[in-house]
């Protein structure tokens, strides 16, 4: 089972114990840029769906665990009907502003070529989501005006070196 480690985080598969933190994040206004706030039923669809992505595709979302517990999620996501492989991240409310998303996403981008040969990796980021755009910039991703086909409110940020 894939586990990635960074200076401050362990990236591991999600388990049922992670559910309360995930649900509480999606119930909060902090989830506004990531299809939230969401009720328990919708949050469970996303949580169980992220867990189910792994056995299907061989990759998926990780829980980010710091010394004090889960601080967010980050991973690769690729429904078969979408052209691009996506890398996404979110940081739970109390853990924002500490650089966790950037740290985790860097590890995931480094690991990506071992599990996929997708020609490019993108991030779909809502135009108003400044913090996530700054993460994408730090990761070296570029936005050249392309908007997501499935969601016109989202910018397509393309990560360099995805096909490496």
């Amino acid at each position, binding site marked *: 089972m894939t586990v990635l480690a960074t200076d401050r985080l362990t990236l591991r598969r999600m388990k049922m114990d992670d559910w309360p933190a995930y*649900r509480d994040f999606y119930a909060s206004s902090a989830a506004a840029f990531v299809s939230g706030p969401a009720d328990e039923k919708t949050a*469970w669809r996303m949580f*169980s769906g992220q*867990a*189910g992505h792994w*056995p*299907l595709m061989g990759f998926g979302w990780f829980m980010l665990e710091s010394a004090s517990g889960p601080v967010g999620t980050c991973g690769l996501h690729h429904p078969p009907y979408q052209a691009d492989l996506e890398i996404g991240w979110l940081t739970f409310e109390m853990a924002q502003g500490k650089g966790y998303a950037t740290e985790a996403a860097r590890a995931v981008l480094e690991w990506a070529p071992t599990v996929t040969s997708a020609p490019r990796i993108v991030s779909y980021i809502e135009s108003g989501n400044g913090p996530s755009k700054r993460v994408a910039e730090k990761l070296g991703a570029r936005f050249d005006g392309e908007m997501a086909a499935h969601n016109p409110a989202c910018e397509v940020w393309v990560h360099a070196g995805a096909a490496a």
Partner: protein
Amino acid sequence: MKQATILRTDRLTLSPPAARDWPIYEGWHGDDRDDAWAEFTGDIGHWVVLGFGWFLVRAGEKVVGSVGLHFPPAHAEVELAWNTDEDHRGNGYAPEAARAVLSWGQSRLDVPRIVNYIDRDNTASQAVARKLGATNSRSAPSHDADCDIWVHAEGVA
């Protein structure tokens, strides 16, 4: 990875959803592939995080419906639930498959009881529940006022 749980009855084979079943979910959801993908990955994820979940029911090679043990966090108890695809109704597949899943659940799950949440208008499902030996508690679950909780006594499947 752990071997998938396969259940067999006289006419049916039940297996957890796997990669080959994506077209089945697409078919169930018509044009809404986001919904199909959410349900497909969600059903598989239910197995990943809880160790039980939905089975696809096959007669020969053909999928005729699904039966599962369903336990999203918003529900108070583990629910045995079933769906038979429209073209395959009237063959008694739902009770046959559900009996196998109930019996598997009762032997594997550490829960005080297994229930069905059945809409008061859904007489077809009520008939299946009766065939399985469930009794109507005539009380509604907290997540759905239109349903009654049907209770399966341990060991009657």
